């Protein structure tokens, strides 16, 4: 019967089509060679034979990071890698942007015996884990010389375990910033506050005028932990902060309680937070930015890293001139402090190409390729500040490289089971506190218990 035959033919064709679709390579360019990126490298990087260009280097080097090539940061990194290729003509860079699951993907490849040559990590806790697994190769002496010469000591220490240095911090993020709506401040004749008490007074003025002062992204625990860290380093000092990271101070300590109490004066105040505390807990990071800079505006200020300014333009459509910023205010006369994050490049294979790439990333040339592209701050003191495209990047980079007091993001520094998990550890604990700030004592006990569990 012809209908039976055509039916069978159709079924066969359908099966073949499905198989072909499944086997076809996806168009998603998560893997690409760096040379494919538009080569707008500065001539300095291309022509200058830096100490990183060795004769006779050849082969490939595989680099893994979270940002895909469709992401502005991924594209910027590709340009840095292209500059490396230009300085080392025999080497090709194979870049993999794998997304937020990088810790899982990386540990799977390490366990499978096929790690990438170089990985870029956002959390020092992950570096610690990889060192424990014997997965990292220490950096070469050449890299250490660069680190000693051009970086503040803290950046080398962050990548050092038991006296051996494993990585290069070539990208940093200054998170001690508060962004605000310039038009509102101007209308009300408000000047940006420099002290905590000023901030409270400014917030009260905004409330009196019918506005909600602060946008808090409570749904994303890490923004709350950034608030806590900024307050803690100012109320308890740098020494105590670092002791808290190492868990030499308990979370039930009086200094932690005092920091939470200070924090309560601003973000624990129902009137000062847009949407109230309940509303804040339902707001994600991007939602909070849109609440401040979008239309209609719900709030006037928001604290965060330089990425807030970038997203204010992209997601909320704010004019760059309307996005003002000031440094996180000092509390009780505390000296200027910068809370930062950063990305560290580490080598997982014992190859000359990997070490050469690390040396390049430690040099100012790498920073100078990325600086003009924006959304970047280098902790390298030798990077020329005039290359940054705007005041915000300059302020951020200056803080990272030259700050009197610099501390690294606490939630990134402790084991990620405690500091980096949605709904648990620090993130979940501060969210619970925000639900009801009066419950502080219980929250601290829970935090201490989880910190102990993660350390053990």
């Amino acid at each position, binding site marked *: 019967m012809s209908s039976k035959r055509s039916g069978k033919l159709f079924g066969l064709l359908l099966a073949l089509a499905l198989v072909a679709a499944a086997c076809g390579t996806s168009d998603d360019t998560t893997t690409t060679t760096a040379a494919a990126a538009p080569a707008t490298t500065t001539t300095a990087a291309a022509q200058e034979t830096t100490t990183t260009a060795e004769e006779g280097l050849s082969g490939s080097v595989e680099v893994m990071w979270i940002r895909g090539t469709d992401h502005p940061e991924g594209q910027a990194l590709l340009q840095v890698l292209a500059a490396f290729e230009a300085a080392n003509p025999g080497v090709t860079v194979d870049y993999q942007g794998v997304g937020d699951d990088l810790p899982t993907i990386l540990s799977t490849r390490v366990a499978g015996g096929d790690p990438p040559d170089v990985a870029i990590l956002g959390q020092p806790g992950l570096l610690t884990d990889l060192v424990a697994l014997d997965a990292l190769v220490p950096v070469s002496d050449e890299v250490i010389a660069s680190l000693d010469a051009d970086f503040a000591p803290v950046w080398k220490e962050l990548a050092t375990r038991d006296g051996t240095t494993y990585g290069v911090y070539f990208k940093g993020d200054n998170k001690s910033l508060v962004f605000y709506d310039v038009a509102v401040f101007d209308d009300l004749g408000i000047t940006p506050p420099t002290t905590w008490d000023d901030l409270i007074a400014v917030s009260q003025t905004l409330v009196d005028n019918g506005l909600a002062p602060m946008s808090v992204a409570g749904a994303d625990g890490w923004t709350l932990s950034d608030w806590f860290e900024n307050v803690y380093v100012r109320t308890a000092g740098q020494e105590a902060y670092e002791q808290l990271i190492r868990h030499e101070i308990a979370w039930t300590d009086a200094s932690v309680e005092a920091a939470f109490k200070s924090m309560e004066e601003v973000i624990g105040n129902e009137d000062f937070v847009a949407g109230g505390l309940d509303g804040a807990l339902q707001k994600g990071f991007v939602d909070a930015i849109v609440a401040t800079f979008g239309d209609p505006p719900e709030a006037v200020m928001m604290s965060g890293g330089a990425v807030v300014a970038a997203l204010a333009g992209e997601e909320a459509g704010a004019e760059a001139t309307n996005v003002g910023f000031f440094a996180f205010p000092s509390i009780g006369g505390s000296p200027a402090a910068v809370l930062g994050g950063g990305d560290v490049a580490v080598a997982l294979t014992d190859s000359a190409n990997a070490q050469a790439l690390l040396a390049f990333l430690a040099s100012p040339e790498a920073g100078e390729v990325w600086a003009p592209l924006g959304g970047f701050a280098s902790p390298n003191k030798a990077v020329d500040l005039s290359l940054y495209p705007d005041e915000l990047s300059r302020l951020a980079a200056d803080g990272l490289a030259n700050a009197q007091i610099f501390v690294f993001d606490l939630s990134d520094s402790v084991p990620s089971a405690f500091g980096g998990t949605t709904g*648990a550890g620090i993130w979940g604990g501060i969210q619970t506190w925000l639900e009801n700030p009066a419950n502080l004592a219980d929250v601290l006990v829970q935090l201490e218990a989880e910190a102990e569990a993660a350390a053990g």
Partner: protein
Amino acid sequence: MKRRGWVALVFLAPALLVLGALVVWPALKTGYDSLFDRFGQEFVGLDNYQEMFRFDRMRTAIFNSFIWVVAFPLVVTTVGLALAVLSDKVSWKRAFRLIIFIPAAIAILSSGIIWRVMYEADPGRGVLNALANIPISIVRPAGDLAGAGPSTDTLVVADDGSLAASVDVGSDGAVVQLGLLRLTEAELPEGATEAVAPTIGGSGTVVGVVWRDTRPGDNEKGVVEPDELGVPGVSVVLVDGSGNQVAETITDSDGTFALEGIPSGSYQAAIAGSEFREPWGGIIWLGKDLITYSAMFAGLWVWGGFALLIIAAGLASLPRDTLEAARVDGANEWQVFRHVTVPQLSPVLIVVFIALTINALKMFDLIVGIAPGSVQDDANVIALEMWRTAFTGIGNRGLGSAIAVFLFILILPILLFNIRRFTISEQER
């Protein structure tokens, strides 16, 4: 016989290989991994099974999973049954069933995200709260001065939300100033002009002003200053010591008002609480109290169609004569439903019920999609806890594997029941 057995084995071999590699081996390896530490290097025996219960998270997860297993299949099956039976009689039943089934075609994670948007607390954004706000905004509408508050202590907020200041009317009359804060200029009633400080009016008069007591730059509270706007159209009442209303007036465009013929004495000048009533904030569907039930409703939306379709198919295959016989015997529709339809449908209902129970225990993507980060702890179920422990920041493979084994043990009774039923129905054939 032997040769046929070999041929069968050859044809089954690829499937057995795939099953072995993708189902059997990972299951065994997970059980093995659960006896090791977070990186799979150190043997810890049954420690992980103890560690699991150390924090409240797992207890919340078990409790929530229990609620899901008990409530979800029951609710969805019941709704599916009700819809199937009720829609059986109408001519548009095919269209109706199709519409109910459409959500089943959407990926569950997408459904979670769709519902997260629908459940937004702000009535201006969330669909459910917007609908609920329609009657609420008619019954208890927001006041013109929503959210405003007093600018000085002389104004007192009463329990009913009204704002009042004491007025002592003497031989020269009295002046009363009602300063308000927490209003933006845009929120003022239309036609507001610069506020004017009232001057005393003489015997028997009470003059006053209601104004927005703030301005850019220097601002002294309680004093009417240039650049400060009056609040027009506000109803001010004068109440005497025993609570009787003596006079009432409405403020002018510059916020001033005047009352005549007031005898000397102590009064309260008040603005009614309804003026300050804030717009309804919305039910927080995705807050810690309601999240599991909100997620369950979203699950009903996804799986209700599936239950409806299978039960409807079962319904269609019921012998009509039993139903007719019952009706002829004088049973009403409800009795027919309860005593004839449902018992005959029970095999179908059990199939649906078991499928939904297994889904309830596996529930994961819906909760990840629907719960904001701040309530993931409260919405936690065992499958979610397993994923969080093994794959996200916690990264503890041993503990995650132990939770997976625990989940398997919980599903085991249902699995065995299902297999037993299948075997029995095979034997009956």
